[in-house]
């Protein structure tokens, strides 16, 4: 069950207008390495995790990513809300504007719409946690790239640096979850069976 707290995880107060930068940053809203994909990935994978620590971690990180999704929306919104028509046309924002005006819509910087194809949920804990660790590193790299693009805006880089640091922490947490999974398995062959599915490991809810 989800509750909402009327507050951003980290404060964002951007005074500048820059729709061109907003078009790049929107990729963390609905793009392949973005926060919506991250949240849906973790919240989808948690149902078939065979171990309670992993269920808890995926739930909690998936929830935090929704807060990050909100932060990216805020950055894009604040960078575009005071745009003039001249700024709009000069920045190349017009092809987004024509379909969405100033509204937020999950897409990549390229314009590709968000889709479930941008994440996976495979149902094997080793596979899923490895996917999660890769996802956090992809997000970190994307934030590195955004930082290079937004050097002129300390209001923006401040929030992006927070988000980037969170990705690094999540990466370490998922690494610990993978260790926990491996401890439950035969160290001579981690791949002997899928503990989320096969009768050998069972799907006992007490693990």
């Amino acid at each position, binding site marked *: 069950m989800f*509750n*909402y*707290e*009327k*507050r*951003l*995880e*980290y*404060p*964002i*107060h951007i005074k500048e207008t820059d729709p061109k930068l907003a078009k790049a940053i929107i990729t963390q809203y609905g793009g392949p390495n973005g926060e919506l994909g991250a949240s849906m990935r973790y919240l989808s994978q948690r149902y078939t995790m065979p171990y309670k*620590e992993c269920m*808890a*971690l995926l739930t*909690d*990180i998936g929830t*935090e990513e929704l807060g990050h999704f*909100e932060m990216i*929306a*805020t950055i894009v*919104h*604040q960078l575009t809300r005071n745009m003039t028509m001249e700024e709009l046309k000069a920045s190349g924002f017009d092809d987004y504007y024509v379909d969405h005006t100033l509204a937020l819509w999950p897409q990549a910087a390229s314009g590709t719409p968000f889709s479930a194809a941008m994440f996976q949920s495979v149902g094997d804990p080793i596979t899923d946690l490895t996917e999660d660790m890769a996802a956090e590193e992809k997000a970190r790299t994307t934030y590195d790239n955004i930082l290079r693009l937004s050097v002129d805006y*300390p*209001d923006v880089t*401040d*929030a992006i640096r927070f988000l980037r640091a969170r990705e*690094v*922490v*999540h990466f*370490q*947490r998922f690494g*610990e*979850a993978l*260790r*926990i999974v491996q*401890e*439950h398995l035969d160290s001579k062959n981690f791949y002997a069976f899928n503990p989320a599915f096969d009768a050998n490991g069972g799907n*006992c*809810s*007490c*693990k």
Partner: protein
Amino acid sequence: MTPNQTRGQFQRNHSCQQQRSMANYAAMPQRTPASCQQPQENPSSCRQRRPVPPCSQPQKPAAPSCPPPSRPWNQMTQEQLLQWISMTKFACVEASLYLDTHPCDAEALAYFQEYNRLYNEAMNEYAKAYGPLTISHAKHCDTYWEWVNQPWPWQ
């Protein structure tokens, strides 16, 4: 207040080692849960975890007993109180992610309990003075549903 000043305050408002602790929490060493009393939902068929070998990484520092905010609630501005809420809640979030994979760590549990207590107090104070930050805190909305009030976080 510019975000950079806000961020500096984020780090300076606390005399305790909160920030360093949170950074250290990012790389938690493994610990042997020898004294762990995990509640067993189904002891007969539940598999015990093998103990984690002690690790050569440096031990994390003791959980700080962080002093409460430097001013009482009625001397904080709305922005300062909101910042205090963000700080205490963030400490809880960080601790909860660590505890998800180390549920028996007594120090981390104590750290979480302390910051959770401070967070809940602050949320109640904020709701009384400025309006609810969650629907559960809308208990003071007797004549008007203040939940709808602005600003909303992205404004």
